[in-house]
């Protein structure tokens, strides 16, 4: 019995390597696949800086015209609520929008280096993280919450948390109580490869989702209580 088993194992020594190759190996240079959220360049610089809440409040004033005072955003889905979001996530988005990795032609000029300094990005992130979160400002239609909950618990909890709280260290955004229409727009954009700086794992998860599935899960998240 043991002899047979050993022969089998020796014959199949190459199998684990195949599994590895199929798995989530980090993209290497020249492989054509950009690694998600590479911490380099300005992003790296900003993450090392100490942000100041008071300076951030002043610097944020140029953002209020769209993101509103208190950073509550818009229920039309045009502008996300930024209040209470993880500073790491905000820094990632601001630097990615600035560098063009995240495709956002409407916002890019307002995050331009002549408008915001590197330090201000750190300050704004720190200021926003500390703002009180107003949840459920833009809730979804509420007609497929059971389906949304089931999908969320199956596919999303692993990164975004059971309460939609996200993970600051891993750059997974807080999604609880975010505007429904914004969540939906981003989910579609990530599924369809439009966003530019989407996490490839998330794009993979969303690939089989129908529009109805995306609506359901966005609806569910928009109703989650503020952490």
């Amino acid at each position, binding site marked *: 019995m043991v002899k047979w088993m050993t022969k089998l194992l020796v014959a199949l020594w190459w199998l684990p390597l195949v599994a590895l190759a199929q798995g989530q190996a980090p993209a290497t240079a020249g492989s054509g696949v950009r690694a998600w959220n590479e911490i380099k360049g300005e992003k790296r610089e900003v993450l090392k800086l100490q942000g100041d809440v008071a300076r951030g409040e*002043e610097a944020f*004033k*140029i*953002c*209020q*015209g*769209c993101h*509103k*005072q208190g950073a509550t955003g*818009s229920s*039309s889905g*045009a*502008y996300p609520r930024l209040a209470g979001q993880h500073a790491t996530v905000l820094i990632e988005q601001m630097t990615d929008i600035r560098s063009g990795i995240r495709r956002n032609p*409407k*916002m890019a*000029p*307002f995050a*331009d280096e*002549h*408008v915001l300094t590197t330090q201000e990005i750190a300050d704004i992130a720190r200021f926003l993280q500390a703002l009180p979160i107003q949840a459920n400002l833009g809730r979804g239609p509420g007609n497929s919450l059971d389906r949304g909950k089931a999908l969320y618990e199956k596919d999303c909890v692993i990164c975004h948390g059971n309460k939609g709280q996200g993970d600051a260290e891993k750059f997974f955004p807080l999604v609880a109580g975010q505007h429904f229409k914004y969540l939906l727009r981003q989910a579609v954009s990530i599924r369809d490869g439009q966003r530019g700086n989407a996490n490839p794992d998330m794009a993979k998860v969303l690939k089989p989702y129908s529009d109805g599935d995306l609506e359901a899960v966005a609806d569910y998240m928009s109703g989650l209580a503020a952490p």
Partner: protein
Amino acid sequence: MGWTDIRSGLAACYDFKQSNQPAKGGTLKSDCGGTCANFQSSPWHTGFLIQTAAVLSFLLSGSVQAADSATAKALVVNLCSACHGLDGNSTDPKFPKLAGRHPEYLVRELKEFVSGARKSDIMTPIAKTLDPDEFKGLGEYFGAQKPGSGVVLDQKMAASGMKLYQDGDEERGVPACSGCHSSTGAGSKRFPRLAGQHKEYLIQQMQDFRSDARSGAGSRLMREVTKRLSDDEIKAVAEYLTGL
């Protein structure tokens, strides 16, 4: 060293008939004897001079400030008022109202005219003739004046201007102007007061931002915002703002 010694030291060293305050340049006697030398080298002397200087500068500081604002007023009377009005509420819409604008904003603009960061065929040469030390006084003078309002001629236009000013346009990504310039149009040291400004001046500035003709602090952002506005929208916002 006692107080009597200090007094005799002072008397020996300073001719108080010339001036009563040594710190203000009471004539030091050149032929003062040993008492003077001893006194001068004593810490009492230094302490006395420091104290007197401190008291004097405190008393004089009020009058130095008054001198600043007197110079500023003179400049306004002789130079600025020709275009901007004595009270900063100009009558010719080519020249912006300065009354009630934040002093630090006004100083910043003057500095930018001098440095060339902001260009103006009219203001650049004028600003360059000024002593930069005067800028603060000028800013404070105009900042203290009462800002006037303009006249709204087209209420319908003003109403659509108000919507754009307060809410922006989400579809095109036009930020609400109120986000920076405040919902009353009063602005701050960073973002100028727009309320009550001449509509022609506002239209000209917005068009200059849109064509990249206007540069300077904040211009990158304003150049982008105005590129998202049509001519009609610029006029509507100006119509609304002049009435505030």
